[in-house]
């Protein structure tokens, strides 16, 4: 599977970031495994340590398995001013996890992230590729319930 | 697209498609679409205007609508506003009159 993803890209070093993105996005647990790193290393002919160097540099990559849905709550000042800490507390309590953890059923991973640039509607979070704005404690509960029902 | 003239052609066509957002409008037709206007057939009148304008390829004429104009006995009422000229109001409009007025 990893080899097929690699083969979509030319075997040049500058494609590393895109290969990592695609491997992580298509993995059901949204992470980059040791086997994946080995496969990329063979394909691009770069040492594994270089790949780990790159993948641990960027905050979006994970070397640990994660949930089906990745919640990324903005931790920047504009969202904080608008009450993101209340939203975080609520998320932690309804999911029963701390930041960086995955729910027992494997459905959600809770993460904090840098500014998402939707500050006019702060506080905001992204769940996978969707942005949710003007969050309140009630609103996040609704959103999580909806996604729970969908999956 | 190889020349500025090619670009200009595309631009003219595209501007025509965007004429509702302002720009090159010579005549504005305002159809009174209050309850009594609609009851007397203002929707048909408006639709006929739209069809006639499209059929005659009048690129600088715009159709818009407004609420009750107060002239219930004359409905459907249509204002014709041409740049630099006094407004003309037509009463008792119907699709046939619309077709004639375009001539």
């Amino acid at each position, binding site marked *: 599977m990893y080899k097929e993803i690699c083969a979509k890209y030319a075997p040049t070093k500058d494609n590393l970031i895109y290969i990592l993105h695609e491997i992580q996005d298509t993995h059901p647990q949204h992470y980059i495994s040791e086997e994946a790193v080995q496969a990329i290393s063979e394909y691009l002919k770069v040492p594994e340590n270089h790949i780990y160097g790159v993948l641990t540099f960027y905050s979006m990559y994970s070397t640990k398995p994660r949930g089906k849905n990745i919640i990324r709550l903005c931790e920047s000042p504009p969202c904080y001013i608008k009450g993101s800490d209340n939203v975080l507390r609520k998320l932690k309590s309804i999911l029963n996890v701390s930041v960086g953890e995955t729910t027992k059923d494997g459905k959600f991973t809770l993460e904090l992230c840098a500014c998402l640039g939707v500050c006019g509607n702060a506080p905001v979070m992204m769940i996978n590729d969707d942005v949710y*704005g003007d969050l309140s404690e009630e609103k996040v509960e609704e959103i999580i319930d909806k996604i729970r029902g969908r999956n | 697209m190889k020349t500025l003239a090619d670009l200009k052609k595309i631009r003219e066509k595209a501007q025509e498609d965007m004429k509702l957002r302002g720009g090159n409008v010579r005549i504005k037709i305002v159809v009174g679409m209050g309850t009594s206007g609609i009851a007397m057939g203002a929707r048909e009148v408006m639709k006929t205007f739209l069809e006639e304008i499209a059929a005659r390829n009048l690129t600088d004429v715009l159709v818009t609508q407004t609420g009750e104009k107060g002239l219930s006995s004359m409905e459907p009422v249509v204002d014709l506003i041409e740049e630099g000229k006094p407004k003309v109001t037509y009463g008792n409009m119907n699709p046939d009159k619309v077709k004639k007025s375009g001539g």
Partner: protein
Amino acid sequence: MSLKRIDLLICCGSGCVSAGSLKIKERFHEVLAEHNITSEVNIIETGCMGPCDYGPVMVIYPEGIFYKKVTVDDVAEIVSEHFVKGRPVSRLMLHDEEKAIAAQKDVPFYQKQVKVALENCGYIDPESLDEYIATGGYEALGTVLTEMKPQDVIDLIKESGLRGRGGGGFPTHIKWQMVHDNKADEKYIICNGDEGDPGAFMDRSLLEGDPHRILEGMMIAAYAMGATNGFFYIRAEYPLAIKRIKMAIEQAKEVGLMGKDIFGSGFCFDAEVRTGAGAFVCGEEMALIHSIEGMRGNPTPKLHILLCRSWGKPTVVNNVETIGNIPTIFRKGAEWFSSMGTEKSKGTKVFALTGDIKNTGLVEVPMGITLRELIFDVGGGMIGNHKFKAVQLGGPSGGCLTVDHLDTGVDYESSKNAVP
């Protein structure tokens, strides 16, 4: 045959999308079909209209009526009252002391604004090449390629006084001249869309709302310095911006506005999108270049203080908003551009207003307007009429200014001097 009589512009910038504008668009489709007037209404998804706090917002032409905080439940009323009967729904308009403000142009938020880079943002469909062309798009590129020499292009930018909008305020023409004068078999231009500063979303909105403008600006810059390849480096947090730029590149290639022998001038250009993976520092030029090369985004010293190199070749890195000004400068002239702003800071500047301010959102004002005007006239003042305490200008490297600084102009010199 077009029977359209209404243009319904729904803001689909990330802010309004997060507030539900896509669901509203779907609802419009349903209700228009119920009333059997689908053929009379154009539904257009635009980029950011600016007043994010009022989202989801929309503007309805030909009247230019502005509705705010529209919900799915309001759609039926808008269609039956406004579209069918011609009676705009006043409760969805903005109100100024009880009085409804119908037209977008009369909304106070827009009144002190002057839109250059944001000219089309919220006015055209960003996914339509034709709409960009209708506003005069690609005319500047055509004129530059067929009538001007690269050095003339650089001289015109010099005359306009354009400076980098990323924050540093470095004169754009000097960067271009460096690369122009550097002989190399290949040169690159990079559009820096790694907008990481908390609270900033100027570049995101431009990339999402008017992608062809950025493409056109990039090609003019590339021609001036002899670059044949361009990269859009956009942060991975901006999936919509990435999608829109990719789409714009495809559209431009399809009609021959990008690729080989553009406008029959012999100029060839190709561009692609590169994304980051979450690293604030990648907004720094060298870190960004390393990231494009597929490495860790570590900032490294440059061999020459002004000249960047990617893959060892001379490279210009310009910010999105800087590039966004270029097509308009060529369409309207250097003199027009330099007539706005202050002596040393020419033109306009886009700001993102966030925090405890009434009108959060995206605005564009002439350089040199005071913080007071920006915060109170455009921004509407503090929420709940609280006392203003402080404003943070720029990102982490900017500074906090207090009430004593409210009369500071927002331009490169004044703000630099004011920040303690």
